[in-house]
């Protein structure tokens, strides 16, 4: 008889590795198939990982995990055409262990996490693309990869945002451009001491910054900057629907080049050497755009399920990937006890996801995608804020206007009315 695994995991990203790690830890026979040369070879993040939501799910890994810098300061920059206004948040709470979030490079982290899963007994095969699912009486019973047929009780689709596996299982929602963004970035190498000097950091402290407005020419999205140990991740996330529209017509690579040349950025990356350019689609449709999470003999986790979320101040996906992988594994363990891998048995995954922070977050923030679509956030407000600051700070040759009337001139009735409308929508987040 052909060897049959307890589970076959498609894709060695965070969801896949989290489920393989969890399953192998419980003695299950689990096979991970990864199409890249090594785990992480195809994986991209902005990026930053928030550890709190997943710390207890993998208690043993955080001490040695190859994370970059813990984020000790958070910046938001409203970028207008000619000027910008920044807010920086630093706080003692960000300096206290356990640290809330870390910058991260996926090729490094994923490869390490795969090692941990292998140490627990998971089997990992790289350079292996899964081409198809194998069905029997409508139930998923395995996968086809490079001509080989591999069988398992459960297939866990962790093949990322484009999830061809979930699609083949009929679990994927129709693709609509408004539900997706693209992130692309450069890794710019700099001496650690230069990074620390430029960002006012000490030791392993790191900085995270977001940029709104001119960086995307008013289109839905923004720029980001994270400091790694000896590099800076600098990039843009932008809604694909806005990007493909021709008002204004601008090519994605141009946006990043112009962003890099802004004064606010140029000084930070000066002398740095770009060593990699990467890009990836991000699911951003929120709760309403999630794919179906389970079927007969199959579970879907991470980006494959649509589990990433943009709520303006944070863009998160990696914690959801790790946690959904964990819950998928828990579901396989429970199904194994009863030797029942039907959709009904695997619906346990849905239940666990509902009662976890994952789907609670997605429900809490289900209005966010519609609210944030508002073009005023990406054009009007950054410009207005910049203009107000310009007028407040300007000292002319003659007498200076009073501050209140200076600000009030921007607050015509129509503007106040529009702001109130925006505010009421923002209150839904």
């Amino acid at each position, binding site marked *: 008889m052909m060897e049959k695994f307890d589970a076959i995991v498609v894709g060695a990203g965070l969801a896949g590795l989290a489920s393989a790690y969890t399953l192998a830890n419980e003695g299950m026979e689990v096979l991970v198939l990864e199409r890249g040369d090594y785990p992480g*070879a195809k994986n991209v993040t902005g990026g930053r990982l928030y550890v709190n939501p997943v710390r207890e799910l993998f208690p043993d890994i955080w001490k040695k995990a190859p994370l970059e810098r813990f984020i000790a300061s958070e910046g938001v920059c409203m970028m207008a055409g000619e000027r910008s206004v920044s807010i920086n948040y630093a706080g003692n709470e960000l300096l206290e262990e356990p640290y809330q979030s870390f910058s991260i490079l996926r*090729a490094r982290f994923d490869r390490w996490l795969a090692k941990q899963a292998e140490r627990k007994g998971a089997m990992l095969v790289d350079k292996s693309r899964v081409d198809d699912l194998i069905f029997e009486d409508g139930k998923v019973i395995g996968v086809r990869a490079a001509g080989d047929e591999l069988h398992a009780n459960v297939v866990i689709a962790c093949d990322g945002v484009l999830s061809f596996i979930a699609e083949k299982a009929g679990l994927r929602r129709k693709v609509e*451009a408004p539900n997706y963004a693209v992130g692309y970035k450069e890794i710019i190498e700099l001496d650690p001491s230069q990074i620390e000097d430029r960002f006012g950091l000490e030791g392993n402290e790191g900085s995270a910054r977001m940029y709104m407005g001119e960086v995307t020419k008013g289109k839905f999205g923004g720029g980001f900057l994270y400091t790694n140990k000896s590099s800076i991740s600098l990039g843009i996330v932008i809604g694909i629907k806005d990007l493909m529209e021709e008002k204004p017509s601008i*090519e994605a690579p141009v946006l990043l080049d112009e962003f890099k040349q802004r004064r606010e950025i140029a000084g930070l990356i000066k002398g740095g050497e770009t060593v990699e350019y990467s890009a990836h689609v991000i699911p951003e449709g929120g709760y309403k755009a999630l794919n179906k999470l389970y079927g007969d003999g199959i579970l879907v986790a991470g980006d494959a399920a649509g589990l990433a979320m943009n709520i303006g101040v944070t863009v998160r996906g990696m914690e959801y990937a790790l946690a959904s992988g964990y819950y998928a594994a828990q579901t396989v363990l429970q199904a194994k006890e009863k030797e029942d891998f039907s959709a009904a048995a695997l619906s346990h995954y849905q239940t666990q996801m509902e009662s976890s922070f994952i789907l609670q977050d997605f429900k809490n923030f289900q209005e966010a995608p519609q609210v944030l679509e508002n073009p005023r956030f990406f054009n009007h407000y950054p410009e207005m804020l910049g203009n107000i600051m310009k007028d407040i700070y300007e000292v002319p040759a003659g007498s200076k206007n009073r501050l209140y009337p200076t600000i009030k001139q921007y607050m015509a009735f129509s503007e106040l009315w529009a702001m109130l409308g925006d505010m009421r929508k923002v209150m839904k987040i």
Partner: protein
Amino acid sequence: MSEAIGLKAKLGLDVFKHDKEAHIKIKDGMQKDPRLKRAILVCPAGLYSENEQGEVELTIDGCLECGTCLIACGTEVLEWHYPSGGTGVQFRFG
């Protein structure tokens, strides 16, 4: 001021392993489809361009496998697969 490096040079920094066959193809007869023009704007690697006949062309070398063209243009105009195992872009940082 840091130099703006060209897109080609930027892609040249990445590690690519050649696949026997192009993993993304423009479907026959779709070269002039308006949906395909979106790819010119959205591709972060700038791999799509329009020729003098108004047809969209794709150069697959330098593909970051991000999936943006697939989302923007759809499967009616693009045949889209991941490259075979162990080929395509191999990120060293990600």
